[in-house]
């Protein structure tokens, strides 16, 4: 028994990491920290994909994870560029100050 980890533990871990990512997204005010919480959420999802891939003994889950990583990279690049632009315009990294869409 010591050699085997129940699969549900992996998924629970994934859920906890995802929840922590959401918490970071909701409760932090620095844009970059928010962005990093998004990356945390993506990692949690990766973990659950790999877990399911193990359960079904398929490699498709790994491929999905691979693509998520690619997209995360692209997204990080563009997102950080956006943050740079926003910072140039407003000189603040407080997400609550980016509210010119507010009525």
């Amino acid at each position, binding site marked *: 028994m010591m050699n085997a980890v129940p699969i549900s533990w992996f998924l629970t871990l994934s859920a906890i990491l995802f929840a922590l990512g959401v918490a970071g*997204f*909701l409760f932090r005010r620095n844009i970059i920290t928010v962005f990093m919480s998004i990356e945390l959420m993506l990692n949690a999802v990766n973990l659950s994909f790999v877990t399911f891939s193990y359960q079904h003994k398929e490699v498709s889950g790994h491929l999905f994870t691979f693509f998520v990583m690619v997209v995360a990279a692209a997204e990080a690049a563009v997102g950080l560029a956006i943050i740079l632009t926003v910072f140039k315009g407003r000189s603040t990294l407080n*997400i*609550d100050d*980016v509210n010119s*869409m507010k*009525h």
Partner: protein
Amino acid sequence: MQLWLIPILPLAGFLINGIFGRRFSKSLVNTVAIGSVVLSFLWVLKTIFAMGDLNTSIEEHYFTWIQSGTIDIGCDFLVDRLTIVMLLVVTGIGSLIHVYSIGYMSHEGGYYRFFAYMNLFMFFMLVLVLGANFLLLFVGWEGVGLCSYLLIGFYFDKKFATDAGNKAFIVNRIGDFGFSLAMFYIFKNFGSLDFDKVFHQAASAPEWVLTTIGLLLMVGACGKSAQIPLYVWLPDAMAGPTPVSALIHAATMVTAGVYMTARSWVIFTHAPGAMDVIAIVGILTAFLAATIGLAQNDIKKVFAYSTVSQLGYMFVGIGSGAFSAGIYHLVTHAFFKALLFLGAGSVIHALSGEQDLRNMGGLRKKIPITFWTMVCAWVAISGVPPFSGFFSKDAILLAAYQHSPAIYWIGVVTAGMTAFYVSRAMFMTFFGSYRGKAHPHESPAVMWVPLAVLAALSLAGGWLFPIPAFLKAMFPAFEEAENHMLMYISVLAGFGGIGLAYLMYLRKPGMADSLAQTFKAPYQLIYNKYFVDEIYSATVVRPLIGGSRMVLWKGVDAGLIDGIVNGVGARCRDVGSVLRLLQSGNIRSYATWVLFGSVALLVAMGLLGGLPR
């Protein structure tokens, strides 16, 4: 037999004059309007000759008007002896009055409109008279009420005229409501509104049903024929042009109630209670209106109250069971009352608009034709034998005596008062010295020729048209006991009235005023028409208007309905202003909402049966 031509010709006149009349010359308007009515009259004559011995009635069915469930009402016309009498009166006197109006209205604005309305009135009146079922009669009934409103308010820029039109229409409506209830009840009990079907079954219906129907029909007749308590519109209706007063409010429309009760004689003869009510209402109205007519100073108002009073007589005849006597008086009254009104119109026209008796006098030398024709009407209405009014009034009083002697005696007193006030009007207008300031001139031929025709009819109509004999076949046998004593008494009352008026207004001119001073309170009472209008206004009109304003307008309409409609709009706006908060522009709040949504999804998933295995 093409009966439909009789009403359609005036309708065509209305349409042509109404739509195109503005551009027509006066003579073209005249030709269309009078031509249509005269043609209608000629067609009536042709129908009579084609009918032969007049013992069978003709019915023509044109189309099915309403067919729904058990209701089956067609557009049917019926012509029997009663219809013929009415048709002749309506088209004949209508033609005369149309001719007269050419002269009277020649200086008035809205010439084509007047004739259009008059033709429309003729159409509706003919539909009323020709209808073979209650509903078609009601169509005509309502239509003549509409035309009365339009014509009374003809001078629409004068407030008293439009008010009078409103009053006529509204008071008539009350009568119409009674008529409608009667029709509903008739339909409920007899399953049809056709005259022949209803009257066939009425003979065997229970008495209380017939009494109720009779009383409800009477309410309708009270409205249209100006009996108590719905007579108040007729005196005010004098605000319309004089030909209107002559045609509608003397000869034809106000007699519609009498015609309707005579047509429904089957119902009434089996409901003696209703007949008693009719007779009592009739005599009370006759008496009351005659007392008011004693003190009026406007010549048209005198004749208006006289009309109300004479209509009361007709109902006394009907209520006493002498239906043909009532119709007889309808015919003779049409002659002499139309003549009185047209003559008054001629006087007014001669004096360029003066209507107050106190400003007239000594006109018999100045407008002789008008004078002599009105004398014919004067003797007819006073019941002087052997002229037309004597025959018809006598027939009614005899029948009344057989029904109830009290009614007879009140009728005799009323006859005396009738003679008195008409004589008073005649003496104040034509005798003595002229008290006014205008230059009296005789009316043109187009006006005095109809007067002459009507004068001849007023004098000779009694023997020329023996209506009771004519209608004997239609109505139940009514044995009139020949009682010469009664006849002498009523004639004496007539002469007494004339003599008293002669005394008070010609021999001793100041006597009238001194009597008025001595009996100040009664005089004020009748001069102010017993304050009936004021009483109605205080007890009925103002509470209704106030109630309408407070409850229906402010409460229901503005409060409830506007409240609901505006409330819906306001609630939408409120919901919107709450939903707007979702779009806060703040990223973190959006994220919170996304989280909330996903939690909701998860809960829903769990409740709906979990994940698939």
